[in-house]
């Protein structure tokens, strides 16, 4: 384990803890409108650590809420994509032959599509709720996972211990889930770390366009959008959520890169 992994992981953990505890310790709430304190710059005097927004709501609490929502969506969406990707990839890899070829051909076809537009279409067609956002974002990110898991499974199923299990009469499902799946954990963990920033990106993109999380709930994407409208008079409204979002994404990307380098020496991009 390199120092980089520990430092990144530590900072991310710190951000999550502050995001969870911060709103409880603050005297303000996320949806409390105050027309006497609109667009205040950050100050330490009355607890508005990050200032206020155009409705006088406390930006610290709102930003922390945004971090919570953003990370929650990203983690749940990543789990969705993990489940779809691992099951799909493991089945394709273990089955091999024509089934594998057909299943991977389907993945290739989907790869070529600008998926985000389908998510937007989904958001237009149905009422926007949390569950739909989770599933929609998870559903676009499983392709990479499926490919990687399939590749691993293909090589694992030729190994002696799999053959041994098969000789002892284990059913295909048992071989797949009891013998092969545990060996996939390392790879899967690395790629989930790389999937999380992608999910964050999609969620904040949707919220930025007004198609994701709805008011008075908020996410970092919606906060950035609100900041764009106010940037001439109150640039803190743009810069604070933008910095938070960029920092979280950078940390996750760095962590994923470092984990990948630690797990396999191939490196790459």
């Amino acid at each position: 384990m390199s120092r980089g992994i520990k430092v990144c992981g530590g900072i991310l953990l710190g951000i999550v803890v502050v995001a969870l505890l911060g709103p409880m310790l603050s005297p303000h709430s996320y949806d409390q409108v105050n027309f006497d304190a609109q667009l205040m710059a950050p100050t330490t005097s009355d607890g508005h650590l990050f200032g206020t927004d155009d409705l006088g709501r406390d930006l610290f609490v709102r930003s922390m809420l945004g971090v919570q929502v953003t990370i929650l969506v990203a983690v749940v969406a990543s789990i969705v994509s993990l489940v779809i990707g691992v099951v799909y990839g493991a089945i394709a890899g273990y089955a091999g032959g024509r089934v594998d070829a057909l299943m991977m051909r389907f993945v290739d076809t989907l790869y070529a599509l600008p998926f985000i537009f389908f998510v937007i279409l989904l958001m237009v067609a149905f009422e926007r709720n949390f569950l739909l956002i989770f599933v929609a974002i998870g559903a676009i990110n499983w392709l990479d996972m499926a490919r990687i898991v399939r590749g691993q499974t293909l090589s694992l199923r030729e190994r002696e211990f799999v053959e041994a299990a098969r000789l002892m009469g284990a059913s295909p499902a048992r071989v797949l889930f009891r013998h092969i799946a545990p060996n996939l954990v390392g790879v899967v963990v690395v790629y989930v770390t790389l999937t999380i920033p992608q999910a964050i990106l999609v969620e904040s993109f949707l919220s930025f366009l007004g198609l994701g999380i709805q008011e008075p709930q908020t996410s970092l994407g919606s906060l950035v959008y609100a900041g764009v409208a106010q940037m001439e008079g109150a640039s803190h409204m743009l810069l604070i959520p933008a910095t938070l979002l960029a920092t979280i994404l950078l940390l996750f990307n760095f962590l994923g890169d470092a984990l990948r380098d630690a797990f396999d020496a191939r490196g790459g991009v």
Partner: protein
Amino acid sequence: MLLYALKRLLGAIPTLLLVITLAFLMVHAAPGGPFDDERVLPPETRAALEAAYNLDQPLHRQFLNYLAGVVTGDLGPSYHYRDYSVAELIGNAFPVSLQLGSMAILLAVLAGVAAGTYAALHRNTLLDRIVMGLALTGISIPVFVIAPVLVLLFAVKLQWLPAGWSGNDGAGRLILPVVSLALPQIAYIARLTRASMIDVLSSDFIRTARAQGLGTRAVIRYHALQPAMLPVLSYMGPAIAAILTGSVVVEEIFGIPGLGRFFVNGALNRDYTLVLGIVIFYAALVVLLNLLVDLLYGVIDPRIRRR
């Protein structure tokens, strides 16, 4: 080569059919009709409206009609912009997005390859670390964060460049949108180029070229660049998709009347036909550009064609 191109073109048809079917079903599975948001309509008016838009027919008829329309370039009327057809709206808005997108791609490839090559030649020096650190940062920061921050810096604080589109003529208004769109791609291409350039530079034919006394410049230009560009070329497909996605927010931020803006407005107005039409258009564009990239790949690397 021609046969290969034709084969690939035919291969794209099922993909497009899948896209159209998926998108069509998604829109039509939606609860509520396109006229639900407006004031309550008398039943006769409503029936007349639905008949006018062919919404009273069974779903498979509607789909076949739509499919026939798509083939002939007719994407139906827009529900929101009542005087325009979807095809007209796309035709008006797309040239603006095309200009923006192609400039961004060009900038991304030029700057990305240059930065990546530079880093590869100076690998493990301080400058390499700085370039790669910047690249990781560039990949991590989304377009909708880069764009407003650039506006804040160069348009609001320094006032060097215009922030908006309308009311500003000339090339100045293009700079900030194009740069914001290109930056993440520059970063990604720089990383790709660095990795593949390091790979190529350590191969035997480069050693031979050097042994014959060629300078670094000539080695890069005549020997290393072409093979090192292959991974960049195969990244062009995802890059195009990313620039399309980015153009949606960039057009929103800068107020550019391009396709992305219509798409977002259509999504917010629940203009089903417009959104459906643009999704299909985008998907067709991405599929065709991917095809073009594959063909180019075949030109640069003839081994591909024989497979």
